[in-house]
């Protein structure tokens, strides 16, 4: 079942990142792992972040909408009576009851899953920091690593090179020599 495997791999990914405490995935970790208060409603008796992978899992994913199990496993008496009422005609359910049933089955709605985050600021900031460090490295290397420039880069040599190109009439129609006024010996 590809959906469970994907969900399991995603869960494993943010388990490891939870341990590393990566700044970027912090929101992902918070969103997807269970907090202490919510753990009790699931009936899992884990203290740390370890999850029993042999049991059906819940996930909030945009691309796989229906998880293997509902959000709330362990129902108290009010929830149980609501579930009983759900077995009857649904037109008998009030709007609040329908919403309560939805919230029993799912953790986040699609808009809640899609809510924007501040992650982009971290990304852009990290990018600029790396650019800065790279710039410093390049500066150091320009000073300490590069050999002296070839003699053909000098001013005199470059001027003689330009004159030779004009004498040869390099690209006389649309290119280099086309910009040179041969009569008045100047650039057009």
């Amino acid at each position, binding site marked *: 079942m590809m959906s469970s495997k994907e969900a399991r791999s995603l869960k494993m990914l943010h388990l490891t990142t939870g341990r590393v405490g990566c700044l970027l995935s912090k929101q992902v970790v918070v969103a997807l792992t269970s907090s202490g208060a919510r753990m009790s409603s699931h009936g899992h008796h884990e203290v740390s972040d370890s999850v029993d992978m042999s049991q059906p899992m819940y996930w909030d994913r945009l691309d796989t909408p229906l998880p293997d199990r509902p959000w709330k496993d362990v129902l108290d008496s009010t929830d149980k009576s609501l579930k009983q009422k759900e077995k009857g005609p649904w037109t008998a359910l009030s709007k609040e009851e329908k919403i309560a049933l939805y919230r029993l089955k799912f953790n986040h709605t699609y808009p809640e899953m899609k809510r924007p985050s501040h992650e982009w600021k971290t990304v852009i900031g990290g990018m600029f920091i790396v650019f800065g460090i790279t710039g410093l490295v390049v500066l150091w290397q320009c000073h300490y690593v590069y050999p002296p420039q070839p003699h053909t880069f000098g001013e005199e040599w470059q001027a003689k090179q330009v004159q*030779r190109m004009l*004498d*040869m*009439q390099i690209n*006389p*129609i*649309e290119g280099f020599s086309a910009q040179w006024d041969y009569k008045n010996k100047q650039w057009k």
Partner: protein
Amino acid sequence: MSLAKPAMRGLLGKRLRFHLPIAFALSLVAAAAFKYGVTEPRKQAYADFYKQYDTTKEFNNMREAGVFESVRPTGK
């Protein structure tokens, strides 16, 4: 709270019927623009250049400037 049923079929066809004529038209416009903006002026520029081109005169100019190895400048 009853919404209209969304379109379930013919989505690709609808998209193609909309986008393909536009794509063809834009491609033709791009090709025509390049032809009449770039290639025709370029052909004209080359034609005009070579209408006024005196081969021998230019050769002698280049020879005097010293760019050839097969013929030295006159004198020496």
